[in-house]
């Protein structure tokens, strides 16, 4: 992928996340903070489909943004074609793993398997 496209994704994911993370953190403020973390409330959150979808969106956006940010830092630290290939594929793998693991929680908690 051209670097300009990757970086446009980096900026795009950041912009998308601004609003969604704000909603996520402000959710804690809609009720008493401690209460908002109670098991029943959190499960209720996961069962509420629009919010669960929003969590999924935050998860995807920030995994991509965060690991691409890490990729950028690592590419600047050391050079060499093997190393750079490793970093490029490694960060895609890391994104995929984090998204998969987080989605598992959202899916299982959302469907009431737990």
């Amino acid at each position, binding site marked *: 992928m*051209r670097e300009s496209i990757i970086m446009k994704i980096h900026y795009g994911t950041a912009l998308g996340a601004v609003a969604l993370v704000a909603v996520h953190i402000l959710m804690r403020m809609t009720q008493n903070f401690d209460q908002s973390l109670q098991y029943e409330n959190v499960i209720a959150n996961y069962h509420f489909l629009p919010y669960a979808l929003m969590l999924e969106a935050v998860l995807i956006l920030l995994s991509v943004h965060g690991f691409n940010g890490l990729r950028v830092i690592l*590419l600047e630290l050391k050079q060499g074609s093997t190393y750079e290939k490793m970093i490029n594929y490694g960060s895609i793998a890391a994104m995929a793993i984090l998204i998969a693991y987080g989605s598992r929680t959202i899916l299982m908690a959302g469907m009431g398997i737990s």
Partner: protein
Amino acid sequence: MAVVTAQKPSEELITIGKTSTQSDAITLRIARSNPAEGQETTYAEFKVPVKKWTTVLEAILYVKQNLDHAVAVRYSCRQASCGSCGMKINGKPALACYTKVSEIKSNVITVEPMNNFPIIRDLAVDFKQLTSNHKKIKPFIINEESEVTPESKEFIQTPKDLEKFLQFSYCIKCGLCNSACPTMATDTSFIGPQGLAQAYRYVADNRDKGKEERLKIVDNSHGIWRCHFAGSCSHVCPKGVDPAMAIQLLRGYMLGFQK
């Protein structure tokens, strides 16, 4: 390290007239090294008499003339025009000929070779990478109709057209920006602020038709995207080029904010 002093301080080198009676002495610490011979950096200290107009370069040349002829330093114009005398002065990159001793609030001045350039010897560094990165961005007007023929008309540029790129064309290739840049500190493949700013200098010139070509050259994993707008290049540039501005304006084209 013993402090070396001239037996008979020679005045003529650093004084232009005898108008000022005020004459101080500073300690000049010069980093000496010869990496190709495996010689590690050591610091040699010299006592140098200075006037209020003495520049760091003049202080070094005083040492060279009176105390130690072997100090390696590159310079030419002595007036911030040739871009030869960039070095680290008390930890920050600056032109030695453009920095007065009196501006530095210290009696001890340490001069070291610029970072991010290979050291040739002492204060002289190797510019191969800067030059080759500068060439990479095609630092010339690209225009099929640039040949002068009997039929061709002159290309009129208004003062406004000129102002779009003028300040960037003031670059003297001194490399101070590259040595202050945080990306340059670790990224050996990065084009660097000097080259990127020059890419914009030509893209912003309305005689030039090479925009697409140059945008492609800087759009790679060690190109323009490795600039994070830390501004350190513009902080040290001695000519007001403001490479950080040039780079962001160039990136503006690539992000669609500039036409």
